[in-house]
């Protein structure tokens, strides 16, 4: 495993009112990976990013970027970080090129118009460089935010809800931009509350809720857990127990004896549904109704919290 480029060690943030937004968060991020920070609204995603980037003062713990402490060696640490905020925070009257130039200068980098041209072209902004920001569409404004963050050549890029309030087409567009950045060797941490988004882009996924990291896993493994669905089978006639022929399916029978529940993985090669329905028929059980249900993100989080508590 390569040396982590970013280490978060027991990071805490308790606001003056006593609200604990980050609760001993620890996380290692490896160079060149895309990590998705997945969690419902208010989980602490933005606070975590803000505490790493210097927008919020942590009340405990420590963060290092490229080996530099973000408090004691903040210049060295922050010069490695680019931040794309969730809100479209841009000066409306400024020209695209000037705001990008400003960002580069603010981070102490000498003027390099050729480099900025490369970034603006990559983000399809070059033709709009002399336009005031207020004349751009929402999607273009988001690209300007990315251009500003990239203008100072960061090694770690934070994307806070990159596709919030963006239509489907533009979201896929944004994913493509992120993939290109990864190819260029930028480490990316993105927050999202869409499982789909994490799935489309991330190498690893960290789930955060209530200011705590519930788990950090390779995407493939997590998706298997998150891809589970339930099928509820209503029987015409209640049964006393599950017939022996159906034991292999891991069914559960509810108290009335009229409903069987079958759990399966939508991403598996075989879901076993057809086999189960055939087996039901062969066992002489008549099916009245079938209903399938995917666990909502909230339910998955509840499940993860429970697992965390039991572990």
């Amino acid at each position: 495993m390569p040396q982590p480029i970013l280490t978060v060690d027991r990071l805490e943030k308790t606001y003056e009112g006593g609200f604990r937004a980050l609760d001993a968060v620890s996380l290692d991020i490896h160079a060149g990976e895309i990590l998705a920070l997945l969690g419902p609204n208010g989980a602490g995603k933005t606070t975590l990013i803000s505490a790493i980037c210097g927008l919020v003062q942590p009340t405990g713990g420590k963060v290092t970027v490229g080996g530099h402490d973000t408090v004691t060696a903040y210049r060295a640490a922050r010069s490695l970080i680019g931040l794309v905020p969730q809100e479209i925070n841009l000066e409306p009257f400024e020209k695209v090129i000037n705001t990008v130039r400003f960002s580069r200068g603010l981070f102490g980098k000498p003027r390099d118009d050729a480099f900025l041209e490369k970034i603006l072209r990559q983000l399809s902004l070059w033709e709009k460089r002399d336009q005031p920001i207020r004349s751009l569409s929402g999607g273009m404004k988001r690209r300007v935010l990315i251009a500003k963050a990239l203008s100072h050549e960061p090694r770690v890029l934070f994307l806070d809800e990159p596709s919030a309030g963006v239509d489907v087409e533009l979201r896929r567009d944004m994913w493509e931009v992120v993939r290109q950045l990864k190819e260029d060797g930028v480490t990316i941490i993105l927050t999202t509350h869409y499982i789909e988004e994490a799935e489309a882009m991330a190498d690893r996924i960290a789930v955060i809720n209530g200011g705590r990291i519930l788990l950090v896993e390779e995407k493939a493994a997590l998706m298997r857990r998150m891809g589970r669905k339930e099928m509820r089978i209503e029987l015409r006639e209640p049964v006393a127990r599950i017939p022996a022929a159906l034991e292999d399916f891991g069914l559960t029978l509810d108290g009335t004896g009229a409903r069987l529940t079958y759990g399966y993985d939508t991403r598996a090669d075989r879901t076993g549904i057809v086999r189960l329905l055939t087996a039901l028929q062969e066992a002489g059980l008549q099916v009245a109704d079938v209903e399938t249900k995917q666990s909502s993100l909230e339910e998955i989080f509840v499940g993860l919290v429970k697992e965390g508590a039991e572990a």
Partner: protein
Amino acid sequence: MNLTAIAAIYRFEMARTFRTLAQSVISPVLSTSLYFIVFGTAIGSRIDQVEGVSYGAFIVPGLIMLTVLTQSISNASFGIYFPKFIGTVYELLSAPASFLEITAGYVLAAATKALAIGLIILGTAFFFVDLQILHPVWMLTFLVLTCLSFSLFGFIIGIWAQNFEQLQLVPLLAVTPLVFLGGAFYSISMLPAGWQAVSLFNPVVYLVSGFRWSFFGTADVALGWSILAICGFLVACLAAIGWIFRTGWRLRP
């Protein structure tokens, strides 16, 4: 020292000035010219000389101070309040720049603009009155120190303000009365003794007095007190900004 960051902020702020040139420069010049016409020419022609200087010329240093103070405060307070208001402050807070560097960028830009307007008004004054400047170096020193210290003060107001009303509140309710009562249009020696004593608690009296001395060689208070007052105010503002940036007050929760 991230000098590039200071330069970037400075350039960005100055670009705003040039983008809004009419509002930034023409408007203060116009309003000051109106003062010259109303106070200097219309009313001033009925007033005797003040301390050996024609009234029209006498009010020039006060008028310049009035504009420079309000311009310094409004430029610097808006400069830092606007990024807070539209959210672009995130970039300043996440940049590898110290608070000192960020302040320097905004304050130098605000002070430059205020200084330029002060000098333009001085130039305009020559069209209206006969004017002499006895101590030009001191005049410039006072002007620069005033621009810097009141831009720092404005920067503090910009950080403090949580809405546009608060942003206007201090300049409107404190600074304008202090300048008008600070001898911009009169010598405090023209006041009854009691009010003279009260005036000595007004910091602007020391600024206007010192500045006027650099023009005409006469002052309401000793020059040393004027220099001490302006330097003291500068140090107090620097200390306040140092504290704000150490604690992250109103910037970094």
